[in-house]
């Protein structure tokens, strides 16, 4: 199936075969699609440029269909190969009465570039996502600065040519594209005749869809995918042959007369526009009031902030840093960027939306004074490296997290403030992963749906590798059959190819001038959202600034908790004014009592806490960063832990590196440190280090770390570092890959971690309440959060229409205040927990209640205007207990609340709502029935724990409780049974699954190794109530039960529907 690259057939007329490549005429390819023409182009920019350069082309145009999404990759490839890129785009004008018209537009000047962006934007914005529509109407102004190649269809309409000539006089060519069709000689003749009759020049071009002929199978496959058909039935929609690749100049000269090739050079010569030249991007100016320059206005805002942050005067150190940062910002002319970020943050604060910045530039004193972050660099004992450096020409990077429920308000504010012309979200390029590639390829190869489903099961959802033979065989496919071999080969080629553009999670690009003069804008899938055609890497390359407007659930929770504290305790805290470095808070964290706390609540994190024993803010920063795939894969955790525990001496490879590594005890944990090490130990320049950072993020996709390996090892050897150290650093660089965690981000996250920990420690009821009202987020579901609250002595009260609102609320507790302490608060569950109940129904109930307590069920139904479904749901949740008695009776009564239909006139002889309805004997539910109903309706119970109800049965089977296990001797065998509430498989943990089990006395952590899970796959995956035999292992305060055998006891639960969070 694979063909040798670039072969060609002999020309029809005998020609001197000895004619060498050096004698072949020069050529520039002017019509070439990259893989950003989704479903058409089968090669990426790097492959195209590399081959074009090897063939000795003079220039290469990237002309994706109505898109400039691929030109930044083109620019990078052009830089790498030294081959000049021409920017262009292929467009097909809609028939619209006339016949369709296909053109390639090439950018001659900066003005032409703008016009092309504008044209693409117009075509894309008036169509739905992924499509475009352009008509002749859109070309009537002649698109100054653009050259046009006309690609006539079979009709070779003279009229079309004449129309085009009118609008592109002197800038129009007729493209001669010959691909070994039935009679190329005649076609050439006819095209030249047409050009001559119109008085326009003809030029050769290639309609290139792939860099080499060997991509023919992939190109066919993509065509079939695009047409949603199988390859076998795609028929003539496939190209008849593989000629649409970058052919050798010799092959081209055999087909085309010389003057057509020479013409390509004349066009290439005219298209001098380069993306390398400044596009003239500017940040918005309007944020500066009259009489101020950006510089003076930023200074003014910073000074105001200084007075607010340090009412009694700033320290010398802070002042010095401020001046240094301001000077640097000014040299780089980044003032408008900081002013924009400040404006967004200021607006969020005016709406009372909690937000927090992060990123290298966010953790500066300037950002602290501007209120972008709450980290006081001085107070926290942090000395940030210079956040921007002169040499490192990297744009400032600020991400801002907002409360997740209210981020949309900020997005709309940005659109309003700058207008849709000037603000848009960056694109994210959605690429093929294994599963999507297997599905699409399998489908076009004609596999039936059920086999496709089976195939995709053989791959994991996020994998980016081709499926292995073993996996395929395991799932019943023969990896040696021709069909599966074809499939695997094509999947390998399709992996990583762009599929479509989607919107970035929150990266906004804002510009002084309309964005469509810089880059095309198109519609996103969401209504009212527009995206630009470049993604964040492209923005980096093009030096466009972006602000990431992100959503963070924990900020919602913290704001709600602080509101509750204000309302019930009368104390007004903000994230910045919470008492810092509180010992009680750190003691709680060290005990691992962190359910619900931001970032450190995962099983792995929780297990680490008692060993790491964080006792200051910087320890939290490390904790946040350390239990992540990067440092784990790099093998950095254990050395750090041993040093922290004093089990191993802290030493440094050299004095120079002491400065870089001393805060982390000589162990590199952060992205910044890796870059610094490369600079200090391996003589990287700041620019090299920056490239290293980018390559780290991209190596899994594109490779390209090997060159760094050589360079790092050579540099380190030269500076006297040993091989093992170099190896360790390189491993960590690889590990950082997609997950590399910068210290600047960890610090911002750690602040949220501290805030949530402090609130949990000192105002646990408010914390639990706010957390329940911010779900879904984090690792735990309501039952675990409520159970955790109750374990910490908080009184939790059931959902009740007489007291509950939609949200959970706080009420005065029944217990008296302890010695000197504040009176405890009780947590009242909200109606939001009730399965299927609508928020507006709950709000009507609260509103009706405000005008007086409900007397009975009918009173509630009438005043809150409830439909029967809602009453049923309230009854099922037990929320009617005060009005209608037990659940069964509540259901009986609720069933009669429906508005009466005339049809049932006979039945209405007795008014069922009146007290005169005959009584009926209804037995109350049993305890286990209540538990079952609680779980079905609100997902948790305040009554008997389901495992508690069957404790006797478990005892008979010799299963222990969590309380007993807590006292269990180390390394002894144990039998335990509990509800599965969490299954988690960290990507780095080579097949081990962490499970959390729960009973009426507490939780138990279970570790299941791959072979046990595989052997008892069903029990492992399906059990609600799981029995585990195994061995207890404890280390430094954390305990695990290592499973050797599992058993499914779910049937004992008698139908209680519990839920676990699995494999998130």
């Amino acid at each position, binding site marked *: 199936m694979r063909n040798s690259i670039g072969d060609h057939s002999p020309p029809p007329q005998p020609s001197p075969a000895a004619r060498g490549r050096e004698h072949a005429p020069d050529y520039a390819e002017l019509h070439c699609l990259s893989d950003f023409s989704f479903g058409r182009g089968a090669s990426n920019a790097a492959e195209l440029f590399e081959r074009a350069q090897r063939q000795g082309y003079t220039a290469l145009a990237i002309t994706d269909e109505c898109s400039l999404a691929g030109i930044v990759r083109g620019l990078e490839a052009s830089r790498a190969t030294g081959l000049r890129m021409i920017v262009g785009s292929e467009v097909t004008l809609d028939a619209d009465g006339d016949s369709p018209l296909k053109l390639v537009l090439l950018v001659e000047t900066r003005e032409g570039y703008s016009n092309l962006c504008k044209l693409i934007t117009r075509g894309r914005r008036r169509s739905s996502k992924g499509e475009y529509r352009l008509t002749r109407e859109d070309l009537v102004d002649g698109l100054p600065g653009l050259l046009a190649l006309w690609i006539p269809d079979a009709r070779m309409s003279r009229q079309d040519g004449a129309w085009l000539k009118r609008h592109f006089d002197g800038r129009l060519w007729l493209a001669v594209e010959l691909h070994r069709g039935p009679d190329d000689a005649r076609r050439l003749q006819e095209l030249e005749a047409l050009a001559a009759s119109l008085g326009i020049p003809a030029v050769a071009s290639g309609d290139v869809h792939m860099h080499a002929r060997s991509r023919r199978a992939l190109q066919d496959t993509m065509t079939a995918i695009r047409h949603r058909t199988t390859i076998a039935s795609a*028929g003539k929609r496939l190209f008849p042959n593989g000629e649409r690749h970058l052919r050798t100049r010799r092959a081209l000269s055999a087909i085309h007369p010389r003057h057509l090739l020479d013409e390509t050079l004349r066009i290439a010569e005219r298209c001098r526009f380069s993306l390398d030249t400044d596009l003239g991007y500017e940040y918005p100016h309007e944020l500066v009031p009259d009489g101020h320059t950006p510089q003076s206005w930023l200074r003014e805002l910073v000074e105001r902030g200084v007075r607010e942050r340090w009412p009694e005067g700033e320290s010398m150190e802070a002042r010095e840093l401020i001046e240094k940062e301001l000077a640097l910002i000014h040299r780089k002319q980044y003032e408008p960027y900081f002013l924009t970020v400040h404006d967004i943050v200021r607006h969020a604060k005016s709406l009372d939306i909690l937000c927090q910045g992060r990123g290298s530039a966010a953790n500066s004193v300037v950002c602290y004074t501007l209120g972008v972050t709450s980290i006081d660099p001085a107070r926290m004992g942090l000395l940030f490296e210079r956040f921007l450096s002169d040499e490192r020409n990297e744009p400032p990077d600020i991400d801002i997290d907002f409360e997740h429920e209210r981020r949309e308000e900020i997005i709309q504010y940005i659109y309003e403030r700058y207008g849709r012309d000037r603000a848009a979200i960056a694109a994210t390029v959605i690429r093929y992963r294994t599963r999507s590639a297997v599905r699409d390829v399998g489908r076009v190869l004609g596999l039936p749906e059920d086999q496709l489903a089976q195939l995709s*099961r053989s791959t994991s959802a996020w994998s980016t590798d081709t499926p292995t033979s073993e996996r395929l065989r395991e799932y019943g496919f023969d990896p040696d059959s021709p069909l599966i071999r074809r499939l695997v080969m094509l999947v390998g080629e399709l992996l990583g190819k762009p599929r479509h553009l989607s919107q970035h999670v929150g990266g906004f690009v804002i510009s002084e001038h309309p964005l469509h003069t810089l880059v095309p804008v198109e519609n996103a899938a969401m209504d009212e959202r527009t995206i630009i055609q470049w993604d964040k890497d492209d923005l980096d390359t093009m030096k466009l600034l972006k602000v990431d407007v992100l959503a963070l659930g924990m900020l919602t929770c913290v704001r709600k908790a602080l509101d509750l504290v204000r309302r019930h305790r009368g104390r007004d805290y903000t994230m910045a004014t919470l008492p810092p470095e509180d010992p009680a808070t750190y003691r709680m964290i060290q005990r691992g009592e962190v359910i619900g706390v931001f970032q450190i609540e995962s099983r792995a994190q929780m297990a680490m806490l008692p060993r790491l024993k964080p006792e200051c803010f910087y320890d939290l920063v490390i904790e946040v960063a350390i239990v992540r795939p990067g440092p784990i894969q790099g093998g950095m955790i254990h050395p750090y832990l041993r040093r922290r525990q004093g089990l191993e001496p802290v030493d440094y490879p050299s004095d120079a590196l002491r400065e870089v590594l001393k805060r982390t005890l000589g162990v590199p944990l952060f992205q910044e440190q890796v870059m610094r090490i490369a600079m200090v130990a391996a003589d990287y320049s700041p620019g090299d280090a920056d490239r290293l950072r980018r390559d780290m993020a991209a190596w899994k996709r594109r490779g390209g770390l090997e060159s760094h390996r050589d360079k790092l090892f050579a540099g380190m050897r030269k500076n006297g570092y040993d091989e093992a150290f170099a190896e360790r650093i390189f491993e960590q660089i690889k590990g950082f890959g997609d997950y590399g965690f910068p210290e600047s981000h960890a610090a911002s996250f750690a602040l949220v971690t501290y805030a949530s920990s402090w609130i949990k420690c000192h105002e646990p009821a408010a914390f639990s309440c706010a957390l329940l009202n911010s779900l879904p987020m984090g690792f735990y579901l309501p039952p675990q959060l409520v159970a955790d609250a109750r374990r910490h002595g908080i009184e939790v009260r059931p959902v009740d229409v007489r007291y509950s609102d939609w949200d959970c609320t706080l009420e005065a507790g029944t217990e008296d205040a302890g010695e000197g302490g504040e009176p405890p608060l009780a947590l009242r569950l909200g109606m939001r927990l009730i399965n299927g109940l609508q928020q507006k129904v709950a709000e009507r109930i609260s509103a009706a209640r405000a005008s007086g307590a409900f007397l009975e069920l009918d009173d509630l139904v009438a005043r809150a205007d409830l439909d029967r479904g809602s009453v049923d749901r309230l009854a099922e949740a037990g929320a009617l207990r005060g009005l209608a008695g037990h659940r069964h009776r509540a259901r009986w009564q609720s069933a009669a609340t429906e508005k009466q239909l005339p049809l049932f006139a006979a039945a209405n002889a007795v008014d069922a709502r009146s007290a005169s309805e005959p009584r009926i004997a209804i037995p109350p539910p049993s305890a286990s029935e209540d538990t079952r109903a609680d779980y079905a309706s609100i997902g948790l119970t305040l009554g008997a724990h389901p495992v508690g109800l069957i404790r006797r049965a478990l005892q008979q089977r010799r299963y222990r409780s969590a309380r007993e296990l807590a006292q269990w001797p180390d390394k002894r065998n144990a039998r335990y049974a509990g509800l599965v509430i969490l299954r988690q498989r960290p990507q780095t943990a080579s097949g081990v699954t962490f499970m959390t089990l729960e009973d009426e006395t507490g939780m138990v952590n279970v570790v299941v190794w791959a072979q046990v899970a595989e052997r008892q796959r069903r029990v492992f995956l399906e059990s609600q109530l799981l029995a585990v035999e195994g061995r207890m292992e404890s280390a430094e305060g954390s305990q695990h039960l290592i499973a050797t055998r599992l058993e499914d006891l779910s049937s004992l639960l008698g139908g209680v529907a519990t839920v676990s969070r699995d494999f998130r």
Partner: protein
Amino acid sequence: MSWACILLPRLALDGVLRRHPHPERPLVLVTGPAQKRVLAAVNPAAERVGLRAGQALAAAHALVSEFATVEYDVDEVTRWRDFLAAWAYRYSSQVTTAFEDAIVLEIGASLRLFGPWPRFERQLHEDLDALGFSHRIALAPNPRAAWVLAGMHDGLALAQPSTLATALNRVPVSQARLDAKTARALHAMGLRRLGQLFVAPRASLAQRFGMGLLQHLDRMRGDAPDPFDLYRPPDRFDLRLELPYDIEHSQALLFPMRRAIADLGAFLAGRDGGVQRFVLHLEHEGHPNTEIAVGMLSAEREPSLLFDLARGRLEQARIPAPVRGLRLVAEELPPFVPAGRELFDERSSQSMPWSTLRERLRARLGDDAVYALAPADDHRPEQAWRRTSLPVATKSPVEAAPRPTWLLQRPIPLRDGGSRIVAGPERVESGWWDGGDVRRDYYVLETGSGQRAWAYRGVGEIDTPFMLHGWFA
């Protein structure tokens, strides 16, 4: 009156297992849209390895690596139910399929023939076991009670209304054949047995659950009439002829066959319809039947034509053993549309319509022997056409490339030194996906003798001889 309910809890599955080669291996019926396939039923072997009805197919695949799947087919279930109703019809003239998953029949009137009940019941069990349908049987004074009780357990026979009342009191609401929503609601109210409902105020129940619930309860107790449709045998033709002696030659079969077809013709004429397909079953002693299917592209009813077709098929058929009986079954009986006739029909008696000729040729030579050609969508010349059973109305050919009218069956080397290239090369590189990848440069050549040939060389080949692939007219 006494009503017997035969509950068929796994009708769909039994229908499939009857004809499945390996009923003892795990097998499931699958239903639902492509994205959300679920198991509709599982056989005992599948149940043993942990598959359950209601499970998602994806989950089942995750659990068990190998099991057979068969599409759940509603129509098939209806067919089997009708089949069993037809079977039950021999025991009673009052048979109904109105109750879900069940056949209910009145047996009071038949007791004299088949009774007493235990014997009658045994007869039913034996029949059903032999047919291969799992079932439960219950007897009650009214059909609805029998239906409900059959769901409880097998073999209940309550002839007296008083014992019926006691039995019904104990029936759990979840098994009382209530609609699922009502049953759930009653359960949620703590009302778990029918007895509790029977004593509840009727108006209160009606208000909460509508009259439907009361009606169901009343009919179950025999307090209200229960109108339903009775089963009627279907419209189909099924004629069996016992032959007076064993026939060994197909010639000798023609006579009885002509008679059977004549009866079919009369039947068709009587209902003013035609037949699309019928089957001749030749019954042998100690040997499975020989089936000869006769299908037509359009409905026919003219006995002489039908006979001609059947004779053609019969002559081709291999008859493995002497024929004892002959059965003719016709189930596809669509309306008959006569061919248009002119008032003054000019056709001679020898000519026949093209379609009739086609049918006769097909009947004589076999279905595969008569076909039409149609273009196929493929770049490879060999794959660019296909056979069809009917001529296809071709769309206007958008074929830009010149193609010869005569394509050789397989290419042969062109033995002609004096050929001249007229056009080309036209490159065809296609077909990698089915293992038939071709990579050729085609040329239009003029041979020394002035013929136009279509010939190719492999891509990249220079000195190899041309391969001749076709001739232009």
